[in-house]
Each structure stands twice: as structure tokens, then as C-alpha cells.
């Protein structure tokens, strides 16, 4: 009954739909990133997002359009990570670290120039899905559609690339194109996810659902579906729980995600012990 009452509010409906769309997108992209040991890219891009948001606020953009305005900078940063990794002299984790620390350093400088850490900037650090705007809802819907189309149309290539990049190249998979789209979509998903979980916790949306799904030893397609289901239930459960008990929504969603993982790990342990 309480849930039904809460869901009557338009801003709650908008927040829930935005959260579900972004949680779903992140969980699908996360499967490819986690399996390619690029999990921390979410964290790195979140730090870049902090710098981008600080720059956008410094430039005087309306808070309504901060997410949209930060998007190009974060996408460019994700491509920079890809380029650095390709140079063969820098490993993926180091490339993420470089771009991430430069992003946050620029953010700190710009926040300082614009007169310190104002409320707008701090709200992006911890996220508040209830303040999701109409523009952010449409951006989430656009990213959701783009991710779905990407996974469907590039599925054979994505599967091969995730299995082994060299083998994928040898069967004619356009690995460069797929990598660029994957990175750009991840950047877009991270930017929109900062409204849900905040910059500090955004990588959890990319990592926890896939890791939970991977514990179940399913086939590739079933892992993608399970990851998406874990994300959807975590976002819905976390948001409703946070409304009812007046808790921060981003952190609650992450805790719900972690609970799913904990339950799966515990169940596996019990099953193994009984054998």
C-alpha cells in the first residue's frame, strides 16, 4: 500500500523509470567490461565525470542540463583510455588510472576556481535520483535503446571479442569499431548513472550485477539476461526501500545489488557443502 501511494507521485515515477533504464544499460555493458577485466573503467569515468561536471558548472550551464553537457567530455575520455591501452606500452588499469586522476584533478581545480564545492557539485558526488529531470529521463531512454541495439546487432562480434580479442580479429570481427562503441556507450551510461548512484558509487552498477550473474555458471546469453534482472530488481527494490525508510537512494540500490551477490555466493556455498 505504501508503495502504491509513493508511485502516484510523478517525480517518483520519473525517477524509477530513469533508474531502471540506466541500471539495465549498465548491467549489460558491465558483463563485457567485467569479463575483459575492465571493471574499473566505471570508476575512472566517474572521476572524469566529476571533472566534467565541475567544468560545466563553472561555465554556467543550467543544472537541468549538466548531465547532457558533461556527456561529450566523458565520451572523449573513454576513447582516450581506449587509445592509451592500444599504445601497448600502457596496461588497461594504468590507462584508466591516468585518465581518472587527471579528470578528478581538473575537477578539483575548477571547483576551486568557481568558488568551492557548491551544493550542485556535491549532489553529483552522492547522486539523488529523485531530482532526475525530463531531459535526463530521455537521455536514459536513448542510452537504453542504444545499448539494446548495440548488443543485438553486434552480439556475435561482442561474444568473440569478449572471449579473445585476437581470435575475434582472426575471424574478421571489427574489433576497433566494437571497442569504440562499447567505450562511448559506457561513458554515456556512467554520466547518466551519476544521478542514481552518484560519482562515488556509479561503478557498482557496472560491476555488481554482472559479477552476481557470473557466479551462476550460465551460458553467455543467460548471463546477460540474469545480470539485467539483478540490476532491475536492485534498482526497484533499492529505490522503494529508500523512499519508505528515508535513506539515500543510490547507496540503497548498491546495497541491494551487494545483497543479491551475497545471497548467490552463500547459496553456492551451501549447495557445494551438501554435495
Amino acid at each position, binding site marked *: 500500500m505504501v508503495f502504491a501511494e509513493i508511485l502516484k507521485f510523478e517525480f517518483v515515477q520519473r525517477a524509477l523509470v530513469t533508474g531502471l533504464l540506466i541500471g539495465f544499460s549498465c548491467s549489460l555493458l558491465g558483463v563485457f567490461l567485467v*569479463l*575483459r*577485466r575492465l571493471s574499473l573503467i566505471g570508476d575512472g569515468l566517474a572521476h572524469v565525470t566529476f571533472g566534467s561536471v565541475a567544468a560545466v558548472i563553472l561555465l554556467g550551464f543550467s543544472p537541468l542540463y549538466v548531465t547532457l553537457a558533461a556527456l561529450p567530455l566523458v565520451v572523449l575520455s573513454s576513447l582516450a583510455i581506449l587509445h592509451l591501452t592500444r599504445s601497448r606500452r600502457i596496461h588497461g588499469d594504468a590507462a584508466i588510472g591516468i585518465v581518472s586522476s587527471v579528470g578528478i584533478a581538473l575537477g578539483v581545480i575548477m571547483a576551486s576556481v568557481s568558488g568551492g564545492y557548491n551544493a550542485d557539485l556535491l549532489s553529483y558526488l552522492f547522486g539523488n535520483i529523485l531530482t532526475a529531470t525530463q531531459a535526463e529521463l530521455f537521455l536514459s531512454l536513448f542510452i537504453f535503446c542504444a545499448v539494446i541495439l548495440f548488443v543485438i546487432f553486434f552480439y*556475435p562480434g561482442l*561474444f*568473440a571479442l*569478449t*572471449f*579473445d*580479442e*585476437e*581470435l575475434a*580479429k*582472426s*575471424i*574478421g*570481427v571489427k574489433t576497433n569499431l566494437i571497442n569504440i562503441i562499447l567505450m562511448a556507450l559506457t561513458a554515456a551510461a556512467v554520466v547518466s548513472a551519476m544521478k542514481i548512484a552518484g560519482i562515488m558509487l556509479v561503478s557498482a552498477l557496472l560491476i555488481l550485477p554482472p559479477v552476481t*550473474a*557470473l557466479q551462476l*555458471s*550460465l*551460458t*553467455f546469453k*543467460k*548471463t546477460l539476461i540474469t545480470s539485467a534482472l539483478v540490476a532491475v530488481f536492485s534498482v526497484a527494490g533499492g529505490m522503494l526501500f529508500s523512499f519508505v525508510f528515508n535513506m539515500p537512494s543510490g547507496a540503497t540500490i548498491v546495497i541491494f545489488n551487494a545483497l543479491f551477490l551475497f545471497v548467490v555466493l552463500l547459496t553456492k556455498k551451501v549447495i557445494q557443502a551438501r554435495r
Partner: protein
Amino acid sequence: MSVNIIATENLTFCYNSTRVLDDISLGLEKGDYLGIVGPNGSGKSTLIKNILGILPLQTGKVFLFGQPLHEFSRWDKIGYLPQKLSSLNTHFPGSVNEILEMGLRRKNAREKQQVLEMMGIGHLAARLIGELSYGEQQRALLARSLISRPELLIFDEPTTALDPETRDSFYALTEKLNREHGTAVVLVTHDVGIIGKFARRMLYLDKKIIFTGTFEDFCASSEMTGFFGSGSQHIICHQHDTTKRNG
């Protein structure tokens, strides 16, 4: 005139400033069985990766089935098995069946089961690749390289993780495909005895082509005696005789 299945022209490749391939020009025709040998670091795998476009070309040209590499699109004509997977994650959630379908234009369940049975892993079709032993993974990948009935097979040290029985049946299979279907085979190996037994042509690589010709030519070549020393050349050729006797 038959079109070369593989043709390279003046292929040169460097890792940073170290030259690994130096002016490699070679051709492979339909029905050829080419064995590539050479010491560690001689550029054997780099040559294969250049031919398949896994590494970007620096100097020189590669043609596959008469087409320049960058225009070639019929990758189902080629079956490739790398020396080792560069990034296999043991948690990878792909079943052997899904691995087999990778890059396949049409999926025929009977053909898939046949090739798995041939590699002795018919019972593992539904298992996840990460749950298999290294030898079983290698057999699954061998099956994948054969599934599209390719016109060219490229194997880079394919049998390192296989037991002797599976290794022998694998080589017998490559010989059968080559003899009966005219499938061209490129085999990179350290096992010179195997080259002598199966390959029609041998290429000795050490950054550049040191020798190319039949195994008999290699054993009879006084130039190679000068290069290897008569003792080493005798051991290589004797190894071939032993393999033949054992086979």
C-alpha cells in the same frame, strides 16, 4: 593459373625498434601443406598474425585468396588456432557450443556434433569452456577452427596441450583434409619430425626466410648443412625418419 591462397610481399615487422620479420615474401596455393619452423623469437607467430590482420601491417603487403588483406571479408574460409588464447578468462560464461558457433554464418547442429565427436569432446558440448581442462579447451578450439569447412587452416603450435593419441589423430585429420579436400594447411611447430611427416613444403624462419623447399631438399641441402652444422641437420632429418617409422 591458380590464385595464391596466401601471398605476402616484402613483409617487414618491428616490435618497437626490434625487427622481427625481415622482407618476407611467400605464397601458398590450394592444396599446399606448409610447415613453418624456427627458433623461439624467430617471428613465426608474428608472421601468422600479420597474415591474419591481428597485427597491423607495417611494411609490405598481404593477399588472402587474391584479395588485399584490408578488402578480404570471407573469414569463414579460414580456420585459425592460436598458440594460446591471449585473454581467456576462466570465468568466461560461454559453452563449447557457443564457442563453436563463433563467426559461423549458418549453424547446423549435426555438423557441430560431428566435429566435436571427431575431437573426442562430443559429451562436452553444453559445458562452459572455462570449466574444461586446458587440453579440452584446445580441442574445443580446434573443433571451432574446423567447423566452417575452411579452405585454409592455420595452426600455431596446435598440439602443445594434447595427449599423444589426440595429437596423432589431429595430424591425421589435417592430412586427410589436405589430401582429400585440397584444404591448404599452414602449421607452425617446433616439432620438425611432424613437418617431415606431413608437410609438403617446409619454411625455416629466423626473422627472414632461411630455407624454403621440401623436407628432402632441406636434408640434402649443403647450404643448410653450412647453416645448421652437419650434426644438427642429421638429427633433424633422422628425427623425421624415426617419426615415419613410428607412424
